[in-house]
Structures are given as structure tokens and as C-alpha cells.
């Protein structure tokens, strides 16, 4: 005990010294307001991944809920480390290639001074960690497609390879210096292509090739805890303020615009889905309304910094119609088992959002953006289509290859017995709920 105290005592001056060193070295150019807002936004976006875990976790059977929570949680752990080691460098280090470069691997040269080509008023490391949270939630979105039937080891391999070979390059093309879609003039404020279309099409790919869940054709697999799903939706909505309003990279007017349109689009889309349920199935459903709100958040993501509040209402109202058709008509017709509708909500919603950006973007909202088709600039709409098409085709092909490589080596799907018993018991040796004490 004494030893411990003397050790702590020795530490005090060391910590104090580091403190003064850091204080003395605070680089010029950092704005305290912008830095504060981005720190908060980063934490908000981090919360979206556990939020997503509950959104998805409520929708699966109760024998698989821990499996979902664990998959989201381990992505938070694995991609955080990947991002520091090489993910951030591959995505954002300047370069005209497939990836950025390995110049910033291990955060070499990523310091506390701003890197003005990305964000001129916040520490470079803050920009890095803000982007880390996006790199985490994107692969987590895919989980919903192959829910209740993927082996944990195969899942982990898939996520690490997908982050490196799909997320990092697409992120570089759209947001990185030297990225060719960025140079083409594609507008993606907070990740419609990079995050939602990218993950959504990967979801469709994996859902098709892993096959249907056992018994899903005889009987719909019902959500085991819808209150979890609503809790998750609320956490996603809350976190999305960091996702979109944080993407202005400062505590400024554009952030406020993004904040307002984010809330507006989510609200309009939630209403719209509830009405569709009401018209088509007699009653407005809770799951439908929550799904609509998420679809609205997805659709406004690429547009948040470029469109007005009224445009956000139109974007929100329409996204639910498109996603509803994808989920209720297209999916049953083609018969793929996208278990929790990642493709139907994120890919379709993301495509609509990216295209809507090309329609509704206005320089009156953001002088640094561009005008869309409805504001006299049809070229922007064409550029948006190219960005969508490139993301769709690249992510589809690359996700397919990664899936096949893993399936050939360690098999992706759990065996029949494990699927029947559930992923909680067979993959993690735990049970979410007890019946008897």
C-alpha cells in the first residue's frame, strides 16, 4: 500500500509537467468553440453504434439478441484500433490512388495542430477521431442483413476486411484529398454514399449469399423486444445531430442548418411511414414509425449542409414511400432475407438522399456547396448519379469477393444446430434472459 502511494506521489509532478507541456504547445489556429462542438459531436456519433445495437437487437429473436449487441460492440473495439493503425491513413492521407497512403499510419504526423485542408480550426487528431466514429458505424449497419445466422469468427474477419478494402477506399474517393469523386464535384455532406449506400449494398450482397434464416419462409421471425428498437431509434436520432451537424466541422451556421434539417427530415419520414402503415395495414405501427424516422435520417445525411427546411420535409416524406416499397414489395418478390432491412432502408434511403441532394442543393443555404437541378444546375444531378453508381457497383463487387474468400476458408454461416439454438448460446456461451433464477 505504501509503495503504491509513493508511486502515485512520484507521478504527480510528471502529470503536472505533461499538462504544462500540452498547454504551452496548444497550436495556433484551433478554435475553442469549434473544438468543443466537434468533441461533443464525436461522442454523439460514438453513441449511435450502441444505439444501432438496440435498434437491431429488439428486432431479432431473443436467442440472438446478445449476438447483435456483441457484433456492434466488437466493431466499436476492432475498427477503433484499425483506424489508428492504418484505417485513417488509408482513408484520408492525401493521394490520388485507390487508397490515400500509409503516410499517417499509426497517426504519425497527425497532431494537435489543424490540418487545414480538412478542418482549419480544430486539431487534426479531433478530425481523425470524429471520422473514426463514422468508420465504426458503417460496417455495423451491415449486421442487420445477415442477422441470426453468421458465425462470429467469420463476422469479425468480414468486418476487418470490409473496413479496409471497401470503407477506406470509398471514403478516400469521396472525402479524401485527391479522391476522384471529390474532384468530380460529388456532394456528400455527412455520408450518404460513403456510409449508407456503401453499407446498404454490402448488406444486400451478404443477405443474398448467406441465404435465408431457417424457418423464415414458413413463419415471419418476429421482433422480440420492440421497446429496445424504439430506444435504439431515439439514440440514433440523438446521435445523428453529431453525425450531420458535426460534419460542418465547426460550431457555425451550416451546423445549425444541418441540425434543423436533420430533425425535420426524420420527423417528416416518421409521419409518412406511419401514414403508409395506416393506409395499407389499417393501423399505424410503432416499428414502422421508427423505421421511417431512421430512413429520414439516412436520406438527409448527404443533403444536410446544402438544403433548406422545406426541402427536408419533401426529402423525408418521399424517403418513406421509396423505402416502404423496397421493404414491403421488392424484398418479398425477390425473396432475399435482408433480415432487418438494411438494404431497404439504408441503401434505398441513401440513394434517394444522394439524388435529392442533386435536386434540392442550394448555394443560398451553403455558398461552399452547389446548386442542384431545381436551382438551375442539372450537372450536379448527373454527378450525384455517377457517385451513387460507382459506390453501388464497387461495394457490391468487393463485398462479394470478401464474402466468398471467407466462406471458402472458414465458412460464413453457423451450422444448423447452432442456428436453432441461437447465436447467444452457441457463439458466446451466454443467455440474454433467464426464465428461472
Amino acid at each position, binding site marked *: 500500500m505504501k509503495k503504491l502511494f509513493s508511486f502515485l506521489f512520484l507521478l504527480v509532478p510528471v502529470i503536472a509537467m505533461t499538462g504544462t507541456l500540452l498547454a504551452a504547445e496548444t497550436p495556433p489556429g484551433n478554435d475553442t468553440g469549434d473544438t468543443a462542438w466537434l468533441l461533443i459531436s464525436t461522442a454523439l456519433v460514438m453513441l449511435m453504434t450502441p444505439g444501432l445495437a438496440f435498434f437491431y437487437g429488439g428486432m431479432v429473436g431473443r436467442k440472438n439478441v446478445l449476438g447483435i449487441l456483441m457484433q456492434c460492440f466488437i466493431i466499436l473495439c476492432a475498427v477503433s484500433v484499425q483506424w489508428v493503425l492504418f484505417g485513417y491513413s488509408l482513408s484520408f492521407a492525401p493521394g490520388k490512388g485507390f487508397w490515400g497512403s500509409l503516410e499517417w499510419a499509426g497517426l504519425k504526423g497527425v497532431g494537435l495542430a489543424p490540418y487545414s485542408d480538412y478542418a482549419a480550426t480544430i486539431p487534426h487528431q479531433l478530425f481523425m477521431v470524429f471520422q473514426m466514429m463514422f468508420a465504426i458505424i458503417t460496417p455495423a449497419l451491415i449486421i442487420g442483413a445477415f442477422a441470426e445466422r453468421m458465425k462470429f469468427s467469420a463476422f469479425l474477419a468480414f468486418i476487418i476486411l470490409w473496413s479496409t478494402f471497401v470503407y477506406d477506399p470509398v471514403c478516400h474517393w469521396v472525402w479524401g484529398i485527391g479522391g476522384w469523386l471529390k474532384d468530380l464535384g460529388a456532394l456528400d455532406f455527412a455520408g450518404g454514399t460513403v456510409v449508407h449506400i456503401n453499407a446498404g449494398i454490402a448488406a444486400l450482397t451478404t443477405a443474398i449469399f448467406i441465404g435465408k434464416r*431457417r*424457418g423464415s419462409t*414458413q413463419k415471419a421471425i418476429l421482433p422480440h423486444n420492440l421497446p429496445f428498437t424504439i430506444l435504439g431509434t431515439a439514440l440514433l436520432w440523438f446521435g445523428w445531430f453529431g453525425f450531420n451537424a458535426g460534419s460542418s466541422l465547426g460550431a457555425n451556421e451550416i451546423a445549425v442548418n444541418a441540425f434543423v434539417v436533420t430533425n425535420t427530415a426524420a420527423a417528416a419520414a416518421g409521419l409518412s411511414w406511419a401514414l403508409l402503415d395506416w393506409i395499407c395495414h389499417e393501423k399505424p405501427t410503432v416499428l414502422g414509425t421508427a423505421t421511417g424516422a431512421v430512413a429520414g435520417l439516412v436520406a438527409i445525411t448527404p443533403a444536410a449542409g446544402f438544403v433548406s427546411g422545406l426541402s427536408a420535409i419533401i426529402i423525408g416524406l418521399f424517403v418513406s414511400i421509396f423505402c416502404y416499397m423496397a421493404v414491403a414489395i421488392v424484398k418479398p418478390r425477390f425473396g432475399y432475407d435482408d433480415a432487418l432491412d438494411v438494404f431497404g432502408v439504408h441503401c434505398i434511403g441513401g440513394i434517394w438522399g444522394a439524388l435529392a441532394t442533386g435536386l434540392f442543393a442550394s448555394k443560398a443555404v451553403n455558398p461552399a456547396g452547389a446548386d442542384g437541378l431545381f436551382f438551375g444546375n442539372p450537372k450536379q444531378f448527373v454527378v450525384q448519379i455517377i457517385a451513387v453508381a460507382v459506390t453501388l457497383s464497387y461495394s457490391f463487387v468487393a463485398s462479394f469477393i470478401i464474402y466468398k474468400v471467407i466462406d471458402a476458408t472458414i465458412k460464413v454461416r453457423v451450422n444448423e444446430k447452432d442456428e436453432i*439454438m441461437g447465436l447467444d*448460446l452457441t457463439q458466446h*456461451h*451466454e443467455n440474454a434472459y433467464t*426464465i428461472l433464477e
Partner: protein
Amino acid sequence: MKLIIAIIKPDRLEAVKQELYKAEVNLITVNEVLGHGRQMGVAEVYRGVREMGNLLRKIRLEIAVNESFVEPTINAIVKGAQTGNIGDGKIFVLDLVECIRIRTEERGGEAIG
């Protein structure tokens, strides 16, 4: 009159229900129960503590039938629940002394159907 009690695997319930409908047996009660037979359950681990012999989730069906429905009901349950693997479950057939429909106070075979 007989009371048929069956313990089956949870994922076979839907198939058993379908088979029972085909045999025109529409009145069932279903319970979720825990138990294990010879396979002795599963292992679970909580913070490094290994718990052996945990009970498995099973479904317990209770169906009261008149004599003529006994064999069709048994056959339907077997058809729906049989996978050939360990843990498929058991069917118990018991004599049923009386049956009363609460709404009408009918008794016996009338009340069952």
C-alpha cells in the same frame, strides 16, 4: 378422453402446429419450459465462470382429445417434431377424468371439441 402432453424443440412448434391443423386438432395450450434429457444441457460462461448442465428451452404442448383423435394427434406431433436428433422430446398420454367447458357447463366429450 385423453390428455396428451408433449415436450418438443422450440423451433419445431410451427411445424407441429401445421400438422395438428391438418389433423383437425385446433385446441392446444402451449408453455415455454426448461429441461434436459440425456444430452445434459449446455455450458455457459459468465466472466470466466463456467456453468455446466444448463437447462435447454423446450415447448410443452397440452391437448385434450376424445379417443378417436388420440392417434391422429400423436402422429401429427411426431411428424412435426421429429428430426432424428437427440433432444426431439417426448409425448405422454394420460387418462382424462373429466372436462368442463366453463361458458356452457357442458361436460365430457362434448366439452373437449
